[in-house]
Structure formats: structure tokens, C-alpha cells
């Protein structure tokens, strides 16, 4: 087990080796987080998967060509060029399928992935018998832990270039991802932009592939942007967050793997990113599952409270003018809104908990508390103002009504509310009650 000192030393990048690996992975996480965000918005998250497989034949063919030219066959620039050319071919093939057939993105990506991967396997099996081919597969599976300085420099160069290009073209790429048709109709060169975006992805993929391996680069392109979406609705913030989540998972994951040297580094980094994703899925402030559930039940409670208090107030109105706070028979409440018995009990318990109802000895008589009475009168007034507003301003109402706002004035302005109230005065009972419905004959 690592000691605390080991942990600190690793996270703070004290060892040279760790520093190299951690910096490289973090930079890669940043660049792929940003490009991946555009892929996610374009609903092409699995592009990284397709692309990384599409580089295989290029690597094999580059090796074969370099061998027959008398070279070593494993010169990195040559292999990277091969991978890039083949990746770009895959991208073009995918776009061609999409733009000239009825087939959709997922089929086009799947086609490129499987056919290029298969071709790559065939090419690789052919060249395998040549001397010096051993170890070629490390370009396919990568080993993050054995990353060296030159790898990191390459990652930084490509990562910075890609990030800068993506940020420079932020507006154009946003339009492309948001609404392709609109982008085309307003004169943007959609196809060029599409190709450009995919070239950026290819650059990240090829660089990442040989440094950290296939599955990790796929995960890096998908997980950080998806996690980022749970925290924000704004594209800019999403890009920043996505880059940050990518970098943090690279940094944390690589640190963890430095501590557990016998476990595969790439896998640990993926799991770190996945943990961050799970956390975002549950607790994200914009679309997180937990927050959505809480919101939903809070809303349900609030609407239940409004219904109960308004019903109580409407009954009190019939018991005498001016309206005063008197005990209400439970039976009348029940009939007023045709609640089911258990539902009313639940609402009453909730109201008692919120101190809107006096705790009384007799459960069949409901007595509002002072604050409950005040709240009931306020809710009823607001409700009537809104109903009236809907009638007088029906044409613009749907986009303005926010019935839950505590103060109608905040939405409609004091002037409007005064006018509405003036109209409300002579008719204390709302002119059109939605609850008086004709029964079927």
C-alpha cells in the first residue's frame, strides 16, 4: 500500500517520470475534452472510436513502405503520418456515405470502424512476417506509463494547436453543431467545417493513440464532455468544464496509476473519468438526476400546498364576509376539490409540518394558523390575478405567466397589477372558474 508521502509526492508531481506522464495525460485530456464537446453536440461521440480504428491500415502500410524503402520501418513520424492519412481517409469516407446515401451517422461510423479495422488487421498480418515488426501493436494499444518526454512534447504541440483552432472557430463550430441546415442556409461552408472538426479530432486521436492507447482516447473524447453537460447549459462553460474534467481525470488517473504500478494506467484513467461522470450524472447542478428529483418533489409539494390553501380560503369566503379565519370541516375540504381521502391527509400533514395549520384536538375540524391564513389569502389573490390576466391578455399570456412567482408584481409590473386588481374588486368571485364544468349529457 502506498504511504501518505507517496501519495502527496505523486499528486504534486515530485518524481520526474510521474511528472512527464501526468502532464502528458492531462494535456491530452484537455484537448480531447474540448474537441469531444463538439462531437457530443454533433451526436457523433463515437467518432473517436471509429477514427482510432481507422488509423490501423495506415500504420501497417506506412511500416511496409518504410521497410521496402530500406528504412527501419518504425520511425515515429512515418507511422504517425500513415495513421493520420488513413484516419483522414476514414473521415472523408464517413462524410461521403452520410452525404450521398440515406444511411445515418451511426452506420457511416460503424462502416468506417469495422472495414478499416478489418483492413488494418489484414495488412498487419501481412507485414508481421517482416523483420522488425514486433512491437508494432504498441502503437495500437499504447502504454501511458512508459510515456517519454518526446511524447509529451508532441502531445503539447498538438494539444495546444487543436485547442487554439477550436477556440478560434468557436462561433462557426457552434453554428455547425447546433443547426447544420441553418448554418448551410446562412452561407457557412458546412462541409469544410465538418471536415475541419473531424481533422482536429483525428489529430487528437492519432497523438493520443500511440501515447495512451485506443480505449483511453475513445473514453477521453466522450466522457469529459458528457460529464460537463450535467453542470451547465452554456456552451462556453461546457467547453471549459469539459477540458478541465479531461485534464483532471488525466492528472488524477495517472497519479493513481503511478501508485499502483502493476495496474494498467489507461484503465485507471478511464475509471477515474467514469467516476467523475457518475458524480456529475447524479449531482450535476444543471441536469443532475438527484437535483432534478428534488426539484420535482419540491414542485409537487408546493403545488399541493397551493391547492390546499386556496381551497381553504375559497371555503372561508363562503362562510361569511369579510373573510375571517375559522375552523373548516374536513369534509368540506374533501368535497371542494374532490380529493381522495389519503391524498388530503397527506396534504394536511404537510401543511401541519409547515405550520400552516394549527395542531388541534379534533381531526375533523381544520384550523388555519395565522401564517397559513395569510398565505392562503395571498395565494388566492395571486391565482385570481393570473386568471384575470389570462383573460384580459390571453394573446400574450402563455409566455408571461409564471404562476409560482411569489409576487405577481415582479413579473407583470405594479401598473398592470393595479389595473387587474381594479377589475377584480367589483367581482370578488372569479368570473370564469375552471372548476365549473358541464357534465356530459
Amino acid at each position, binding site marked *: 500500500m502506498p504511504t501518505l508521502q507517496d501519495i502527496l509526492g505523486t499528486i504534486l508531481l515530485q518524481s520526474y517520470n510521474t511528472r512527464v506522464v501526468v502532464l502528458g495525460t492531462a494535456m491530452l485530456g484537455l484537448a480531447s475534452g474540448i474537441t469531444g464537446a463538439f462531437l457530443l453536440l454533433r*451526436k457523433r461521440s463515437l467518432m473517436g472510436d471509429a477514427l482510432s480504428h481507422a488509423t490501423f491500415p495506415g500504420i501497417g502500410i506506412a511500416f511496409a513502405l518504410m521497410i521496402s524503402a530500406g528504412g527501419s520501418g518504425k520511425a515515429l513520424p512515418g507511422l504517425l503520418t500513415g495513421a493520420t492519412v488513413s484516419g483522414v481517409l476514414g473521415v472523408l469516407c464517413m462524410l461521403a456515405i452520410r452525404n450521398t446515401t440515406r*444511411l445515418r451517422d451511426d452506420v457511416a461510423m460503424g462502416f468506417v*470502424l*469495422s472495414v478499416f*479495422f*478489418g483492413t488494418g488487421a489484414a495488412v498487419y498480418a*501481412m507485414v508481421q*512476417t517482416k523483420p522488425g515488426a514486433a512491437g508494432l501493436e504498441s502503437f495500437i494499444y499504447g502504454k501511458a506509463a512508459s510515456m517519454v518526454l518526446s511524447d509529451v512534447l508532441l502531445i503539447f504541440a498538438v494539444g495546444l494547436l487543436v485547442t487554439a483552432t477550436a477556440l478560434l472557430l468557436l462561433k462557426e463550430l457552434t453554428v455547425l453543431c447546433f443547426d447544420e441546415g441553418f448554418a448551410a442556409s446562412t452561407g457557412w461552408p458546412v462541409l469544410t467545417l465538418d471536415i475541419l472538426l473531424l481533422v482536429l479530432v483525428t489529430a487528437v486521436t492519432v497523438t493520443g493513440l500511440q501515447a495512451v492507447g485506443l480505449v483511453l482516447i*475513445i473514453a477521453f473524447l466522450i466522457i469529459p464532455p458528457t460529464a460537463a453537460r450535467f453542470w451547465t447549459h452554456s456552451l462556453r462553460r461546457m467547453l471549459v468544464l469539459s477540458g478541465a474534467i479531461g485534464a483532471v481525470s488525466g492528472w488524477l488517473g495517472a497519479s493513481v496509476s503511478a501508485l499502483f504500478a502493476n495496474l494498467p494506467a489507461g484503465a485507471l484513467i478511464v475509471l477515474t473519468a467514469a467516476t467523475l461522470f457518475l458524480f456529475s450524472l447524479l449531482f450535476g447542478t444543471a441536469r443532475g438526476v438527484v437535483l432534478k428529483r428534488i426539484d420535482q418533489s419540491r414542485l409537487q409539494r408546493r403545488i399541493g400546498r397551493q391547492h390546499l390553501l386556496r381551497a381553504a380560503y375559497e371555503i372561508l369566503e363562503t362562510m361569511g364576509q369579510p373573510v375571517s379565519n375559522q375552523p373548516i370541516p374536513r369534509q368540506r375540504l374533501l368535497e371542494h376539490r374532490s380529493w381522495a381521502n389519503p391524498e388530503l391527509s397527506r396534504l394536511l400533514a404537510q401543511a401541519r409540518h409547515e405550520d400552516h395549520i394549527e395542531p388541534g384536538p379534533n381531526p375533523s375540524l381544520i384550523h388555519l394558523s395565522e401564517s397559513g391564513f395569510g398565505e392562503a389569502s395571498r395565494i388566492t389573490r395571486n391565482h385570481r390575478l393570473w386568471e384575470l390576466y389570462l383573460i384580459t391578455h390571453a394573446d400574450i399570456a402563455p409566455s408571461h405567466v409564471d404562476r409560482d412567482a411569489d409576487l405577481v408584481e415582479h413579473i407583470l409590473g405594479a401598473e398592470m397589477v393595479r389595473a387587474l386588481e381594479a377589475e377584480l374588486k367589483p367581482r370578488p368571485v372569479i368570473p370564469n372558474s375552471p372548476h365549473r364544468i358541464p357534465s356530459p349529457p
Partner: protein
Amino acid sequence: MTWTPDDTWIAATGALCALACSLPGCFLVLRKMSMMGDAISHAVLPGLAIAFLVTGDRASLPMFLGAAATGVLTAVFTQWITRFGNIDQGAAMGIVFTTLFALGLILIVQAADHVDLDPGCVLYGAIEFITFDTISLGPLEIPRAALVNGGALLLNLIVIAALYKELRLGSFDPGLADTLGFSSGLLHYLLMTLVAVTTVAAFESVGSIIVIAMMIVPPAAALLLTRRLLPMLLLSSAIAGGSAVLGHWAALVLPPMLGFERTNTSGMIAFTAGLLFTLAWIFSPTEGLLKRHTAASGPPGDPA
């Protein structure tokens, strides 16, 4: 080139496997989930590792069950993340399979501490070697891989024939399926189970390349040639079977021509399928590139 009886078995097994994959593949393509085969073939790794760690043995049945179960779980998790997180299905699929694969790698490393368990060898069979592992059936020595993939094909044929209308309805309009009393969820998971079982059966015996390619490429090519489901299933099967046989033949013929000793049959099968797709893409009588080209240069015709 010499074509031996072994080559016949390899081509036949490849064809069985290709057919088995392309049938559920048609429905995957229609449901916009064509990457599912790829996702499942990565995601089953932890299932294999857990089955191994629990039983401590590389017997194929527990491994098979573990893998198939993880395959179905991949579909379940993808569905959950898509629904609860309200995100794109492709992204959800990607998250699930990379995570499960990573988990599997770590488990495999743990398992490998106890015994020699090489991920590459446990996971992926190779179609070239199927004739080394045979089962005697009367006078015949049948490769186990042929039986396994034949079994998967039979299962797919039976289920798709019996539930043809239900699967079609569930893929076209899940909402209507629910109203009519055919649970769309049940149909979805039934299809996913077929995909998982087929995927595991195939890659365990003949490798993953064929699975991924055959679930997508033949159905996609067939979709370019017809606009009916039944002909699509038939055409897709024909293309799948054809790619397997032609692919193996090409694997024997091509390397000597290029000055190499040998190549990978699975890879060549995928490559051949890609070629057949390209032919359909160019020459499809209804919507091929040629047709489009002539239509675009000629007077505008009836869109139908």
C-alpha cells in the same frame, strides 16, 4: 493457391458467423444503434474476468454466460444513462463500454497474477485455427466454432421468424408497440440479448473483427438496395455469406500477389464486405451514386 477441406470449414464457419451477426444487425442499423456490436465486444471483458475469478477455470460455458450477461448489462446501462441523463445514445454507449473494458482490464490483470491469462488469447479466437478444435459428430469432425456460430444463427433465425412482426413494430414505433400491448422495453432487451449472445459466440470462436463488421456492413449495403424489411434481411444475409466466402478466398490469393506470406482471414472478410458495400453504394439501381449522378445531370424526375 490450394484450397483444402480446412479452407472449406473456415469459409463455412465464417459464413455461419456472418449470417448470425447480420440478422440482428439489420435491426440495430434500423434502430440507429449499429455501434452496439462493437460496444458489446469490448464491454464483455469484465464478465469474462469475473467468470474466471469465480470458477477459477477457463471452461467455456461459465465464460460464455459471464460474457453474454455483461453484454446485456451494457445495453441496460446504456439505456439508463440515455434516459436518466437525457444524453445521446452513442455517447452513453461509449461511456459504458470504455468503462467496462477498463474495469475488465484491471480484473484480468488481477486474475493473471494467479494464472497465465492473456487477454488477447482468452478473448479473441482466430478463424484460421478453428480446425484445431473439433467435436466428433458421428463420422464427421466438426470444428467447435462452426457448431457455436451455427447455434447462434439458429437461435436468431427462430426468434426473428417467430417475432418478426413484433420486432419490426418495436423498431419502427415503440410507442405504438406499447399501446398495442407489445412491451417495447421487452422487445428492446430481447434484441439486445440476441446481439450479446451472437457477439460473444462469434468472437470467442472466430474473433471480434467479423462480428463488428457483419453487424453493420451487410445490413447497410442491403438498405441501399431495397426499401422493404424482408428483402433487406435476405440481401443482408447474402452479402454477409458472400463476404465470408470471398474474403477467405481473397486471404489465400492476395498475400502472394503482394509478396507476403499470409494475412488475416477475418480482416479480409471485413475488407470484402466493405468492397461489396462500395459496389452497392455506386451501382444501387434506386439510389446508387451513378443513378444519382445521372438523375442530377438529367431533368428532375419523379422523386419516387
